[in-house]
């Protein structure tokens, strides 16, 4: 019995020492004025898509605000596992928990009620959350529109392909923007739209892209992290080309060869905005839109494929970009696109 008591005492002492260390570390972070951000993602920080965009954004925000942001992340976190790690971050004194994906909505709303002093963020969502929850909504019909302009002006077969994940969130906006872009410059073009029903089934995305290429599509696009599977399938075709939803795709061998241009989400602006708000005492209760007008998007042509940057394409893209930068909501009709009429 005495031995047991000694063991319990020693364990208690050890726990006390450990937790005291953690608390003092948190206190040090608070004293430095840095906002501690934790990122939870379902894929990896280098998936050349959705998760990498947010990771890159936070790293860029750190560079823009030296000493103002401390940052940790957890990869491969399905919603069912994310709760425990999110609670661990809260216990470690993090100020802002970013759960990057609409699939985390329920978890974040539940935790926001439990921890009213901590800020949370998730997206994509157009909803305005509780007073300690930020949401963000990429108005990606704008990036889709630019991709559509390029696809519509590049296709020789007059058939373009679109590999979507699910018809929701920013993917639905990107896809419909793409349709509007194609139709704006090439009303006769046939657009093949197909969804895989998943964000991360690379094989199925590749199968859908192959199917579209076999059925005549010669310019394709796709959104979410699985799009890299469709891009890889496109690279197998001697003629088909690709327009990307992430500039990171340029860094792949197939992107170098096939990706004419791409847009990226600039989450740095979103993160900087959230940090400023937290520092001024606002913990949430806002939906932050992302568009070209507020520098929420970046667009680039692939420097390795200058032959596809024709004067016609450049003029169309420049005009659209100027319109988007001048005011948000230019493509307010995006939701009216009906795939069954294509």
């Amino acid at each position: 019995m005495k031995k047991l008591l000694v063991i319990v005492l020693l364990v208690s002492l050890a726990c006390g020492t450990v937790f005291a260390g953690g608390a003092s570390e948190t206190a040090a972070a608070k004293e430095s004025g840095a906002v501690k951000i934790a990122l939870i993602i379902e894929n990896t920080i280098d998936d050349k898509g959705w998760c990498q965009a947010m990771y890159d954004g936070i790293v860029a925000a750190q560079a823009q605000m030296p000493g103002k942001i401390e940052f940790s992340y957890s990869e491969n976190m399905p919603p069912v596992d994310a709760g425990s790690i999110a609670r661990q971050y809260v216990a470690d004194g993090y100020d802002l928990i970013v759960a990057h994906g609409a699939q985390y909505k329920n978890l974040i709303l539940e935790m926001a009620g439990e921890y009213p002093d901590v800020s949370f963020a998730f997206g994509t969502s157009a909803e305005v959350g509780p007073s300690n929850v930020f949401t963000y909504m990429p108005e990606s019909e704008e990036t889709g529109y630019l991709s559509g302009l390029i696809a519509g002006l590049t296709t020789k077969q007059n058939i373009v392909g679109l590999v979507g994940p699910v018809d929701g969130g920013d993917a639905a906006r990107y896809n419909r923007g793409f349709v509007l872009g194609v139709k704006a410059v090439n009303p006769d073009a046939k657009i093949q739209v197909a969804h895989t029903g998943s964000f991360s089934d690379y094989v199925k995305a590749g199968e859908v892209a192959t199917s579209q290429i076999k059925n005549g599509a010669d310019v394709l696009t796709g959104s979410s992290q699985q799009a890299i599977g469709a891009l890889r399938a496109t690279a197998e075709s001697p003629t088909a080309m690709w327009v990307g939803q992430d500039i990171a795709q340029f860094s792949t061998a197939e992107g170098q060869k096939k990706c004419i241009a791409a847009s990226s989400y600039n989450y740095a602006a979103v993160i900087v905005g959230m940090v400023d708000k937290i520092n001024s005492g606002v913990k949430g209760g806002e939906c932050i839109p992302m568009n070209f007008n507020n520098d929420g998007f970046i667009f680039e042509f692939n420097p390795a494929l200058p032959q596809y940057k024709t004067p016609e394409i450049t003029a169309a893209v420049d005009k659209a970009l100027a319109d988007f930068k001048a005011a948000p909501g230019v493509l307010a009709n995006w939701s009216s696109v009906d795939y069954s009429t294509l």
Partner: protein
Amino acid sequence: MDFVVNLLAMCVPFSVALLLASIGEMFNQRAGVFNLGCEGVMAMGAFIGMLVPFMIGKGGEVANYWNYLGILAAVMVGALLGLFFGLIVVTFRAPQGIAGIGLQMFGVGTAGTLFRHFVGGTQSVVGIPNSPVPLLSKIPVVGDIFFNHNLLVYFAFLFVPVAWYILFKTSWGLKVRAVGTYPRAADSMGINVNKTRYQALMLGGALAALSGAYLSLAQAKMFSQSLIAGRGFIAVALVYFGHWHPVQIMGGALLFSLAQTFQAAIQGLGINFPYEFAVMLPYVLVIVVLSFTSRNQTTSPSALGKPFNREIRT
């Protein structure tokens, strides 16, 4: 006509991963072992398969034989995982369902962890090129459907009659069926039940890993942690679908793949039809066929899922 030919020409290579994994699982189940860890073995096969050419070429182009060396390495790792699974369920007689789920998590987790360490993020490889069969690939319609694919596609379909021959015409196949149907009788006839089950598990593991390597090196030509995406479980379902018979399993793999290809193609036609139903089509098809054919279970291995212990009378 082109639409149909394209569908069939795509469904043949797209069915290969399921076909190989299902045939492997069939050998497991014929020997009386139910391996739900197929998904994990496929993940390890996919990773090891792409790792060899990736490391040799440092992410760039490599001679094609390095791809086949990757496949060989994947097959060996798959056989070892089959051996490991045998240790757990045959020697230690652990419950096969739980052990299978453990193997699935072990395989997917290990492949993902090693991938992050040795490779990094989502990575493409040059992969195995198509090898059209001279003359035959030029035949209209038939050439595109059957003779314009990579070597693993030909191997997978040629392996179906080989698997049938092994299972039904060799003494080892007879042993496999015996230990999966009535292990006590097999034991009394001098057949080493455990050894036969180990051998079947190694063959099943090797084929599951080959299936994974096919995905990473010949179909998707890339690797990511979620590459397999549930195909291992579909392979297990296809064994029931095909009544533990290689030819019927091939039919199931082709039917599933055809439904998958068809749903992707009809979405592109712009028919006013919710895409969610299209995506569900292959899975619904499997459930419907299973529900109509499950009454005929005479071919199922009657000792499936039951550990063998010669000391205990069952």
